[in-house]
């Protein structure tokens, strides 16, 4: 299982990537995926490094609480800006564990993403949450992986392309 930071060496593979979501595809194929002011992009590659299975991009954000008409920061966050598996592989390759859990490619990629976030938190920056804006298709997946909808008085900022998405978060101090 290979995850590597996006570097120009992989540019030739990008044009074949098709997640079925035009924004997520354009993010990867345009310059945004390299824009360090947005986040860092990591590719999920086949073992021979000839195919992009999926990718994610992570940056930073914060979660706020709205109290007395004021927004107050309650914790820093790693924000998952993008998370996409190529649609050719989305419903393929399910492994089933002895206790009946299905492991999809998206589970493997989320595991790598969360490990990277934990490493950053343990070694480089302090954060309290992981946040993301889920598409309709993604809500079930993230919910099944312990992400929750924001509580009524909580919020974080949206970008233009996130307006139809659902804000979700995961507290990192879990038992």
């Amino acid at each position, binding site marked *: 299982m290979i995850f590597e930071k996006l570097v120009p060496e992989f540019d030739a593979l990008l044009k074949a990537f098709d997640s079925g979501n035009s924004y997520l595809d354009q993010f990867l194929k345009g310059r945004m995926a390299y824009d360090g002011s947005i986040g860092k992009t990591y590719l999920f590659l086949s*073992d021979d490094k000839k195919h992009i299975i999926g990718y994610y991009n992570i940056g930073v954000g914060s979660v706020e609480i709205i109290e007395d008409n004021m927004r107050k920061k*309650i914790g820093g966050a790693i924000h998952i800006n993008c998370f996409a598996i190529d649609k050719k592989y989305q419903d*393929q*390759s399910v492994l089933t564990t002895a206790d009946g859990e299905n492991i999809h490619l998206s589970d*493997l990629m989320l595991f790598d993403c969360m490990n990277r976030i934990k490493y950053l938190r343990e070694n480089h920056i302090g954060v*309290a949450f992981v946040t993301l804006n889920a598409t309709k298709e993604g809500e079930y997946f993230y919910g099944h992986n*312990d992400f929750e909808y924001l509580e009524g008085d909580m919020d974080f900022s949206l970008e233009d392309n996130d307006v139809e998405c659902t804000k979700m978060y995961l*507290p990192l*101090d*879990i038992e």
Partner: protein
Amino acid sequence: MNFAKAVDKSFVVSKNIIRKKSESESTKRKRAFICSHNFSVNVTPAGKCIISATKR
């Protein structure tokens, strides 16, 4: 201006909100499986993605 007081107040607010949550049993089982296996991911010439897992 008393900066220390301002910081202390925000800390109290944060501690009230960031409560501990429990990881679901499903997530625990999946994480245990992923951590205990090495995965190989290959794409066949027909475009099918094959994952295989071997116990570490």
